[in-house]
């Protein structure tokens, strides 16, 4: 579903991402792990088409992000680590805007808003309130609904569990599992290694812009924990 080949991205003279290659298949959840400034967000932004890159190739469901960005973006949903949403809209207006862009029918958006709103604990009244009145967690939930409203094939999430209450966190994990069971793919960055270990099929660890390990979760961690593997690689 997501294929990253030899991705390199520089900021001035600094290589933020250096020859990174990995893929996430349909039905898979892949954790993207690394310390602060390792290159996780840059990689995610390149995959979404927000950032251009110097060399390499990224394709989503076979569509090149650099050659046909609009087609590629139709297949994905992205939520950054700190989702700054349009605070001059209500939650519903924001969801309508996203659904309009993806040409989602009224019935479908109604169903998705009701379903994911209820699951994440965002009531109809809260969705109808101005985004400016939302807490961080509520913005995160609204961003999640907006990501799921158009039934993407790939979801890219940057630190999705930050700011979520325990119930919403649990629901999100359930949604992620269900999404992948239906053939979707997820790549998400996180610092919560226990969640990554329990939830993910694959893991990619990045250090100073270079991918230091990538593979199936069981193969990467072996008999030890993901935390031990990560700390060993970071040492």
């Amino acid at each position, binding site marked *: 579903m997501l294929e990253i080949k030899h991705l390199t991205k520089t900021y001035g003279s600094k290589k933020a991402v250096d020859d990174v290659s990995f893929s996430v298949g349909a039905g898979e959840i892949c954790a993207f792990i690394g310390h602060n400034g390792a290159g996780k967000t840059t990689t995610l932004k390149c995959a979404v088409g927000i950032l*251009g890159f110097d060399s390499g190739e990224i394709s989503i469901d076979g569509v090149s992000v650099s050659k046909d960005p609009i087609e590629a973006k139709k297949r994905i949903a992205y939520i950054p680590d700190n989702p700054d*949403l*349009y605070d*001059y809209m*209500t939650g*519903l207006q924001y969801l*309508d*805007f996203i659904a*309009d862009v993806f040409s989602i029918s009224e019935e479908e958006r109604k169903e998705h808003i009701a379903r994911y709103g209820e699951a994440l604990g965002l009531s109809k009244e809260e969705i*109808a309130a101005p985004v400016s009145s939302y807490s961080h967690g509520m913005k995160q939930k609204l961003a999640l609904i907006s990501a799921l409203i158009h039934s993407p094939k790939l979801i890219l999430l940057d630190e999705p569990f930050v700011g979520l209450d325990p119930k919403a966190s649990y629901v999100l994990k359930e949604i992620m599992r269900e999404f992948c069971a239906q053939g979707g793919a997820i790549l998400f960055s996180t610092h919560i290694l226990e969640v990554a270990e329990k939830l993910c099929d694959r893991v990619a660890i990045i250090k100073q812009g270079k991918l230091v390990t990538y593979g199936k979760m069981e193969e990467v961690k072996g008999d030890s924990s993901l935390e031990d593997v990560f700390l060993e690689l970071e040492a």
Partner: protein
Amino acid sequence: MLKALFKKQFRELAALFLMDRRKGKARSRAAAAVFIAFFAVMLVGLAFTFFTLAKGILLSVSDEMMFLYYFVMGLIAVAIGLFGSVFNAYATVFEAKDNEFLLSLPIPPRKIVFVRVTSLSLLSILYESVVLVPTFVARMMYRGVTLLGAINSFLLFFVLTALVVALSLALAFVVAAIARKVKRKSLVSVVLSVLLFALYYFAYFRAQNAIMRLSQMTVVPKAIKTWLFLFYHMGWAAEGKAASMAIFSGISFGAFFLAYFALSRFFIRFTTSKKSFSVQGKKGKIRVRKKGVALFSREIKRFLSSPNYILNCAFGTLLMLAAGVFLFVKAKSLYALIDSLRAVLPKSGGAIVAMPIVFLAAAMNDLTAPSVSLEGNKLWIVRSLPVSSEEVFRAKILLHLVLTLFPALFLAAAGCYAIRADALTALISIFGTAAFVLFSALFGLTLNLVKPSLDWTSENAALKQSPSVLISIFGEYFIVMALAALYLPFAKVLRDETYLAILLFLFAAADGALALWLKKVGTKKFESLG
């Protein structure tokens, strides 16, 4: 504890001069020095204006009516002080960002209030000094002062400050209380700003005349003694009357302490009361739109949500509509004015004068010039959605056209009516106006793509201080005036419609070139913004 609080408060005050709000960083020493010098020059300039006014009053007021001098100048000082202090009181006392933080520390609220009110008083003295210092200097220079008058005039700085601070706190309390209740804050802000603007111009054109008439009076009207009783005594206090000084000081300080103690008493209750509406909206209705309409709707919502955006970038809309109505109503006298220009512009029917004025009015709207910068930290949303850069540009340009084209065409039509333009001239003028408005939209967007500023901390930085906005407005003014001036050498040979047709062609060509640049280069620049 008070020392630490004062230190924090003065750091905040110093930050007004030492911090660059646009970048959210400290200014360099040289930049801070230039900024402070600019501020000082502005204050001295204002003081000089008040000095001239004070001198005018002093030369016309009789000895028996000398109270009128400080009565008028004191009223002006109160108005100036209030103008600056109400906003300060609102922002630094009632809605200060660190209110809750400070209240979470072991600091008695009355100490927080004491420090805030002291800081407010210092700024208030600064504002009033712009009026009171030249008032005192002019008095000494042109009429002389008694010792008691000089002492009282000096004390008035403090007494007047007490009064201004008390009034500011009361007004700011009302504003803050209303702001917490009102849902459509941006609409209220816009309406209030337009009213203030109208009031300012009304005062600007009428006040001087009224003041001079007042200063020439020989009998004190009863209304002054009753309705403006406090300022009547202020006038006599400055003349050295001890009783008036006692009355004025007593009431002013009384009001100040009343406001201070009320604020100390209710500070916690007010600042910690529910600030905004609960996160509960009425159940909204889903609205399905096409992609292009959704993007345009996003621009409209962004525009309507920000009073600063409306007032800074679309004020021309209101002015063009008002000017259009004015032209239709006063067409006769304007035609006479245009007729008088025939000696200078023998081949002109007036369109060559009217149309540049329409263009200048249209150039006041600069909605596209900050539109990319205004995306700020929310740029990721459109960048991650399957919308092309061209679609985003189209929505931004459309917003400019909707708000500028129709009033500009209305003004152009009114102009044509006023100068009694023939059909051909009117047609070219209308098309010329449309071409210019489109040019204005494309030019602003182009400049913003060349010089975007996404990392602002205050929206005003993108709206007022960004290079694209300044170049867009002044660049368009320059272009229009240069093109109008270029007509003069050909005034004896070229008819209006010929020159306007040339302008139409030039603007249409520029529109084409800018549209092409936006398609080929602008889209790439937009996509490179991370």
